[in-house]
Every structure is written in C-alpha cells, then in structure tokens.
C-alpha cells in the first residue's frame, strides 16, 4: 500500500472515532443542560403537567437516557439522521438541506475569493516590505482584525444597502423555493464581509513566512544565479512560504463552516449557524447532533487536506514518505 494512502486511511479512521466521541459529548451536553425539549418547546406552558407529559411521551423523552442515544446512533448507522423533535417533526435531512446548501455556497464563495486575494496581498507586502503598499496593508489588516465581523457587516450595509447607496440587497433572506443562481446578489454583502474577516489572518501569516523565506540562503542563491525577481518569488520562495499558511487557511475555512452566526443574524441569512442556535435553544437533540457532526467533519476533513497538501508541497516530507 502506498504510504500516502495508508496515512489517509489511518487519518480517516481517526476522524470517524473523533466524530463518534463528539456525538457522545454532544449528547451528554444536551442532557446536562437544564430542561428538555418538551420544556423548551412549551416554555411557560410546561407548567401544564398534562400537556408537558403528553409531549415528553410523544418525543420519546420518557425513555431511559442510554436508549435514547443508542436509538439515535442505530438510526445514524443506517444512514438516517432521524427526525427533529420540534415543530412538525420533519426529517432532519429535509429540515437542514437548504441551510446546509446556503452555508456551503456562502463559505465556498468566501474561500474562493479570500484565499487568492490574501496570497497576493501577503506576497506583495513581503516583497515590498516597508513600502507604502506594505504599510497601508498593515494598517488595513490591523483595522479589520480589530473589528468583529458584524461591525464590518453593519458598515457595509450602511454604505451599500441603506443609508448611503442602495446598490445591494440589505438582507439576504435566501428563498429556498427558487434556484440559488437567481439570488446570487443576496450573497454579495455576506461574502464580502467574510472575505474581509479572513484576509488579515491569511495575508499576515503569508507575509511573515514569505519574508522569512526571502531571507533564506537558497533564495539568495537563486538571485545570485541571476533569476528574475518574479521567478524567485513565485517559483522558489512562495511554495515554501505557503506551507505554514495552509494550516491557517484550513482553520479559517473551518471557522467559516462552523456557522458564522453573527453574520447570519445581521443579514437574516438562513444558514447552519442560526439553525444550530435555534436547535440548542429547543434542545432538539437530533438536529444539534447532525449540525455539530457536520461541522466537526468539516474540521477533520480540512485538517486532513491541509496535512496532505503540506506533505505534497514540501519536498522533505514528500521524500520522507517514500
């Protein structure tokens, strides 16, 4: 078996174990919270014991704790994420499908734009260190880092949707009954907000590592050989400088995928973040499990991809595997 494949399989196995442990922790946590789904649904009305008990029974909350968990786990192993405990008790997959698609598109767009932009900004800042561009970018990045993403979002809404110009939609209430392709204008402001939230971290990391690499002996060697500066940067320096940045990118995308609740609140965007907040408030165990497992799986996969990429890009690790 090729060593890379072996590594992949081992890591995937460990990933599954991680997910199982996550599901146990989530179940324990939902049990540890005060109240249960019936109480969360009824609120003040849970003082009505008849209705409270009837609802508990309907939701299967009167069963012992362990059998609630094993029942859920058994369903999951059969590929069935179960039904929501609240509302019309819809299938979890049906309930979450659109939110997952919305969030996936949002995060993908944000990643697609923010990564190249960050790399270019980082690389140029390193090459033209202490120039006006670099200083300007430093101030820009530090300002963005210090602003929470909802503040960035509010400023964008004021500028482009309500107070100053009315160019873009002020809210992003994506309608799942129509195709997304016709509603892409709704994604512009949330995506820009997220891009602005991600750029500082990635570009500053890349700037630091590029500066380090540019001062290394092999880059000096390349320059002494008389290579063009652009070739030195893009072919010699950047591939090495990008290695530590891959991990930062992975963590940032995973953070985006974790549900950017504040951005969803601000734009009225129906994504997994608000879905998760609601599900926790409702003690809706199957929905909480599904969303947390999804987010955990994204973390596991992105970390795995980052590690594999790191191995493939860095020659020392690549040869070490042979």
């Amino acid at each position, binding site marked *: 078996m090729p060593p890379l494949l072996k590594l992949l399989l081992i890591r995937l196995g460990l990933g599954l174990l991680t997910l199982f442990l996550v599901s146990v922790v989530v179940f324990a946590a939902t049990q540890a*919270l*005060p*109240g249960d789904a019936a*109480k*969360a*649904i*009824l*609120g*003040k*009305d*849970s*003082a*009505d014991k*008849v*209705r409270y008990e*009837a609802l508990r029974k*309907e939701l299967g909350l009167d069963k012992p704790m362990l059998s609630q968990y094993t029942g859920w786990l058994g369903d999951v192993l059969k590929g069935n994420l179960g039904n*929501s405990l*609240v*509302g*019309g*008790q*819809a299938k979890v997959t049906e*309930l979450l499908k*659109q939110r997952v698609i919305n969030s996936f598109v949002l995060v993908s767009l944000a990643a697609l734009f923010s990564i190249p932009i960050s790399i270019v900004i980082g690389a140029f800042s390193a090459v033209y260190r202490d120039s006006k561009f670099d200083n300007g970018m430093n101030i820009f990045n530090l300002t963005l880092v210090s602003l929470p993403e909802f503040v960035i979002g*509010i400023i964008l*809404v004021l500028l482009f*949707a*309500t*107070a100053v110009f*009315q160019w873009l*939609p*002020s*809210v992003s*209430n994506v*309608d*799942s*009954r129509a195709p997304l392709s016709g509603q892409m204008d709704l994604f512009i402001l949330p995506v820009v907000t997220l891009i602005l939230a991600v750029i500082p971290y990635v570009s500053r990391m890349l700037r630091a590592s590029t500066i380090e690499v540019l001062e290394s002996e092999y880059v000096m060697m390349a320059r002494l050989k008389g290579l063009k500066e652009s070739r030195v940067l893009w072919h010699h320096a950047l591939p090495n400088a990008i290695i530590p940045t891959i991990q930062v990118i992975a963590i940032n995308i995973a953070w985006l995928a974790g549900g950017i609740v504040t951005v*969803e*609140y*601000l*734009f*009225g965007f*129906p994504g997994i973040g*608000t*879905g998760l*907040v*609601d*599900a926790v*408030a*409702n003690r*809706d165990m199957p*929905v909480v499990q599904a969303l947390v497992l999804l987010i955990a799986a994204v973390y596991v996969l992105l970390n795995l991809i980052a590690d594999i990429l790191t191995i493939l890009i860095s020659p020392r690790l690549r040869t070490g595997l042979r």
Partner: protein
Amino acid sequence: MSTRDDEKPGFLAKPVTRRQVLQGAAAFGGVAALGSVAAACGGSSSGSSASPAASSSAAAGTPNVGGHLRVAAGQGSAKEDLDAHATAYTMQSMDMRFNMYDSLLEFDNEGVLGMALAESIEPNTDGTQYTVKLKSGVTFHDGSPVNADAVVYSFERIMDPKKPGLAATQLKGLKPGGTKKLDDLTVQFTLTETNAIFKEALATYSAAVVPVGYDPKGGEGAIGTGPFKLAQASDFQPGVQCVFVKNDAYWREGGGPYVDQLSIIEFADTTAQMNALLGGAVDYVNMIPGAQRKIAEGAGNKLLEAKTGSWIPFTMNVEVKPFDDVRVRQAFRLLVNRPEMIAQGADGLQWLGNDMYGPFDAGYPKDLPQREQDIEQAMSLLKQAGQENMTVKLVTSTSVSNNAPAAATVFAQQAQAAGVTVKVDNVTGDVFWGDQYLKWGFAMDNWGTRGYLAQTGMGTMPGALYDETHWAPTNQKYMDLVNEAMKTVDDAKRNELIAEAATIEYNEGAYIIYAFDNQVDAMAATVNGMLPDYSGLGSCASNARYRLGWFA
C-alpha cells in the same frame, strides 16, 4: 347578548382623515367625496353598498387589489407548526395561524366580541348550553363546506384528553362528547357547569374550526377558512418563512384579502428586520424596538402603534415571606415610579397600569385612583410590618420579555429610596420557567390580553395553571365573587361582580402591574389599511388583519 354582526368592511373601520376627505374632494369634486364619507360613516352592516368592489376611487382610500405583502417578523424557530389548536410557540406562528384559521366568534381590533364563522349563538337560561348557528356557504381552503360535522370534529380534537388543545382550559365545563350536531349548520355545546365566559373562549384563536380529519404535520394538511392559505406544504418553512396566497373564497364581506401573496419572513435580529425595510426587501416590520421608531420614520416609513392589554407584572408570592404580609405588598406597589419605569425600562412603549389586569374588560374599574409612587407611605407600611431596610431577590429573564431585566433594574433603583435593597437575578429561560417557576418569591411574568375572568382562571384562582402569587386562597370573599361572576350570564350583573373583585385585587393583591405594553410596527409608505390590534398577540396589526393591507 352584546355581540354584533361583524360584517363591517375593513376600510370602514379605518377612520377617514380630514386629509383623505380633502384629497377626495380635490379629485372627484366635493359631492362624490362627501357621499363616500357618508356611506363610510353610516356603518351599514350589509357591506354591499360600500364594499370595495362597488366604489373604486383610490384617492378616497379604497383598497387596491394585488401585490405581494412581505412582512419581516421577529425571530422564529424550527419549533413552529401550524396546528390550529396547539399553543403557538412563537409570535410568528401565531401570526401565521391568524391568517389561516377562524374561530366561531372573534374579537375585533378594539376587543369587541362578535361573530366570525357563527351566525348566532344562544345560551340557555343558566348558561350551561350554547346553541351555535353557522354562517352558510363558508368553505375551507380545500373547498369543503364548514358545517356542524367540522365544528364537532374541531372541538372533540381540542378536548382530546390525551392531547388537549390550548383552548381546553378556557372552554371550562365542556367535556369530550359535549359538542353535538343538531342539523347541518347548527351545533350545541353542553357544559357540565355554568361558564359565563364560554363565548369569550370560543373567540380565542386556538378554538379555530378545522375540517374533519384535520391533522397537520408541518404545512401538510394545514387547512382552515382564513383569508390566506398555503399553496403547497413546502411554502411553510419553520424558522425561516411562510408564504401564503390569497384565499379567493374568503367568507368575509368586504374584509379583504386585497394582496395576492403574503410572506411572513423571520429574522433573528431586529437590526436586520429594520435593514430589510430600509433596503426595500420587505414592506412591513413587526414589533420594532422603541429605539427604532425614529430610524423608520426618518426614512419615510409609516408607524402603526397599538395599545394592548399585555402586561409584565412583578409577582409577589404570598407563600414566601415577607409577601404573606399585605402591608409589604402594598408598600412594594408604592415604591414604583410608573411613568419613570415606562420611560427607562421600555423606551416609552407602554401605558400606565393600576395593579389590575383586563383593562379592556367591560367590568374593569376605570374610576379607581391611579396608584403613584409614595415612598413615605411605603416606608411606614414596611415599618409596621417590621421589614425596614429589607433585602429581597427579584428574579427576571429576557425570556419573560426583552424589557423585563431593564424594568427589574429600574425597580431596584427606585426601591432604594425606601431603604429596600433589591438584588436583581437575571436568569436564562430554562432556569426561569424551570422547576422554580410559580415558586419564586419575587419575580416577573408575561401575560397576554384577556378578559378579567379568563385571566383569573389562568393565573389567579386555585387550580390556575400559572398561579405565581397563590394569593386568591387568602381572600375568601374574592374567590366567592369570581365564582359568582363565572356563573352569572347577565352581562351587567357579571361586570359589577368583576369590578368588585378587581377592586379587592387593587387593594390587597399580589401583582405589581405598573404598565401595559404598546406595540409598534413599521411599514413602507405604500402600505395602507392596517389597523392596530388591542390583543398584543402577534404583531400589532396581526390577528388576521394582514387581510386589510393593500398597496397604494
């Protein structure tokens, strides 16, 4: 019988302003405009002479037909459903249900009881039997007729002992099997005890009439008689939005609906709600915070303010010392500077309360002097009770009301003047409504608009599900009065008993009712026809009255 035939077309209920009259005069000449105003003021209940179809002058305020009314509602939740008989777990699902279902009777936007699906209702002499005649020709969204079978099915479903509906407690005296079909359009309710407020109970939203076999799961099978209906089940997305189409066969003469489509879109954040209006993504915003009124108006939007009978009381549990002492309760009521609390705790979005609930009840004693802050008197009462410089914990939560923690903090500050130390404990909803709810010594609660007797059955009398104060059993005279009123079918006599009971609460009760809530909705300048609702249920124009909205 104080009910009236409620066929008043919606736009007639809307006051005709001087400006509209002048505009009308300019456009059509004085005679025509005065003629239409005269028709409007005549209050003809037939509706046909002044129905929107008969006159089409937009300038005089006649509704236009068509358009898509998009409403930004507050935070929803996946726990919403459209079951007509269950508790509406969010304001949003209540709004949706108002637009889909009707009950036999209803309260109009000023709280006057009238007929809805019923043509008439007649009690027997001792109020144990009510005979309801249904309007003929009314159909459900699926085209099936509203008849006695549907009514019997609906009330058996509400009274199902295994899963009682929300209205079951209010329909006191009705038992499973107590609803009988007399003929196709006549139903008889037989009660096991006199229930003088049975008509009020029939008017609650959760006593809606649904077709035989009704059993909604999500949007599937959610069929009613209301002005709007679901085109398909997937148009109901709990926690996200609900999209309705106009019910062309709506039964009400001249009462809308005017728009073709109605969307109730849920926003987790009030800022996003307002942004949606400012950016033109919606036409109407439900229940904005007081601070946003200026923003909305500044951008050229209209506001609609409703004075409701909802209340956020401070609750003093007489089973916990020192609230067993009436002097302590009286002192606490005198600690409150009510106007200040309204200004600071609720951005002015409240109106003065006088420690009694049910302000729209015909029996509400309006003439009792308004209670005001009186620190000296409070201190002397506390001294008599041996509770000078007392310390007390006040439990509150944002899940009681967004304003509750602020009101609690203001109370703590005001109480200092009398040497009373109030420690505000702001807890989460799980804790507040948890095992300690109804056992807290000094806490708060959130109540909707109800008639006096309906409220005592829910919150005051022994056996009430939400009795926070446990005060009534300490006052036999009070309980006798309420029980007597519950058995008194004569309206005038009953109102006298109610006034007497409320006065006892005013003097010795255990609630501090410093205010009732106002609600404000904001809407684009093009939206017309909305009426403020007294109930505080759903948005301030809700209670099914989106049907009255139309676009200029």
